[in-house]
């Protein structure tokens, strides 16, 4: 189990290798990587800045990760979430899970990203192509996705 909140980029291959290193009971690894899109709600987005709540962010990510380990037989997991200014195409988030069999890894990975989106205190401010910035609104679809894991 490991959580990082950082400004720096990450290397998915390096992270997955480190997560599984020496753990020969792992039979499957599932990962989700979130990227900055260049369009949101019909407006072109140049870049975005992610603000977060230092302290609470790490605490919430650790709680969510622990919950995944309670629900599924995971051998390992890794969450990385970036903050600061990011440009289209940049990686924002990595969620990775490892278990003896694939189903637990798939489900736990899906659960982690769904819960992270509604429980981790991050806020995105988009720089609009026409100038200015806009705080991204929370999506009802994200709440619905998280609710199905209750």
């Amino acid at each position, binding site marked *: 189990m490991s959580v990082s909140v950082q400004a720096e980029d990450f290397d998915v291959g390096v992270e997955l290798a480190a997560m599984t290193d020496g753990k020969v009971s792992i039979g499957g690894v599932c990962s989700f990587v*979130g990227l900055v899109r260049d369009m949101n709600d019909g407006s072109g987005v140049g870049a975005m800045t*992610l*603000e*977060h*709540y230092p*302290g*609470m962010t790490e*605490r919430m990510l650790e709680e969510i990760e622990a919950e995944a380990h309670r629900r599924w037989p995971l051998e390992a997991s890794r969450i990385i*979430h970036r903050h600061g200014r990011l440009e289209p195409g940049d990686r*924002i*988030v990595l969620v990775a899970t490892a278990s003896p069999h694939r189903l637990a890894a798939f489900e736990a990975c899906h659960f982690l*990203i769904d819960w*992270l*989106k*509604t*429980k*981790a*205190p*991050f*806020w*995105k*401010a988009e720089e609009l192509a026409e100038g200015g910035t806009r*705080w*991204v*609104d*929370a999506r009802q679809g*994200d709440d619905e996705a998280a609710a199905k894991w209750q």
Partner: protein
Amino acid sequence: MKVLYFAWLRQRIGTGEETLDLPEGISNAGELMDWLKSKGPGYEQAFQNADAVKIAVNQTFGSRETPVATNDEVAFFPPVTGG
């Protein structure tokens, strides 16, 4: 007590963090929010749509009914949009 604001609440209020003496008669986060709202135009604007404001007390999600005390850290922020 430490009070924190994030995202558009921080922008409207003009600061991300302030230290307050817990005002007399205030025992929960909702009462604190209502009291803060009267502190000035920026606060009023930030808290005008109270339903859009999320609350955390000591870095745990709470509600208007969550008790607050002198040494607590209380945060107000919009619905989260990470991931």
